[in-house]
């Protein structure tokens, strides 16, 4: 099962894509998911992350089949 990676808002525009599938048979760190999906080496401090639609921190592990999202600080309400 691939990992599904989503990007939103200004981050989506900067990365130049809204969705990416990462093929993997083993768990990946969020840093690895970021590097393989964004093409950028460094995960910026102010990027928020979720796994399976729940907030996580940058140390979380991602399992094959998970849905990961990277996005900028939220500005609703």
């Amino acid at each position, binding site marked *: 099962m691939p990992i599904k990676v989503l990007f939103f808002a200004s981050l989506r525009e900067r990365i130049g894509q809204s969705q990416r599938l990462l093929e993997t048979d083993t768990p990946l760190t969020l840093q690895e998911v970021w590097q393989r999906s964004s093409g950028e080496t460094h995960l910026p401090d102010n990027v928020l992350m979720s796994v399976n639609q729940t907030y996580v921190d940058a140390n979380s592990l991602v399992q094959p089949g998970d849905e990961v999202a990277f996005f900028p600080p*939220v500005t609703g*309400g």
Partner: protein
Amino acid sequence: MQHVDVREMPFEPWQYLADWQAQQLPENARSGATAVFVGTMRDFNEGDDVTGMYLEHYPGMTERQLATLVAEASQRWSLDAALVVHRVGEILPTQPIVLVAVWSAHRAAAFEACRHLMETLKHTAPFWKRETLSNGTVRWVDRNTLG
């Protein structure tokens, strides 16, 4: 009774409240204190004239996160009912963006739960505003106003 509504369609907050209360809230859950907040799109931000806004969200996670915030506030303040309505998509100045309403036996709980829900919504619910300025510039809002 808890309800979250993430919607593209404009809404009139007082009519929404009247309808929801009449249809969803039994009379005994209406007693005591009700606190409501409505956030409306302004035609200015950071000193610039804003003519339009697009509100992006994360379908699925947005609803889930709002439901979590509502459930947490309902438990913490023993609310009788709570309602969150939030627009997405294209929004025009003077249109309502967000409605938060809570029903409680006590006014302190109602005020605090309503304000807490708005603050946590603004800091954790996945919505992103993209503004169109009067000079044609389009920009992402990069942070929320304090407060």
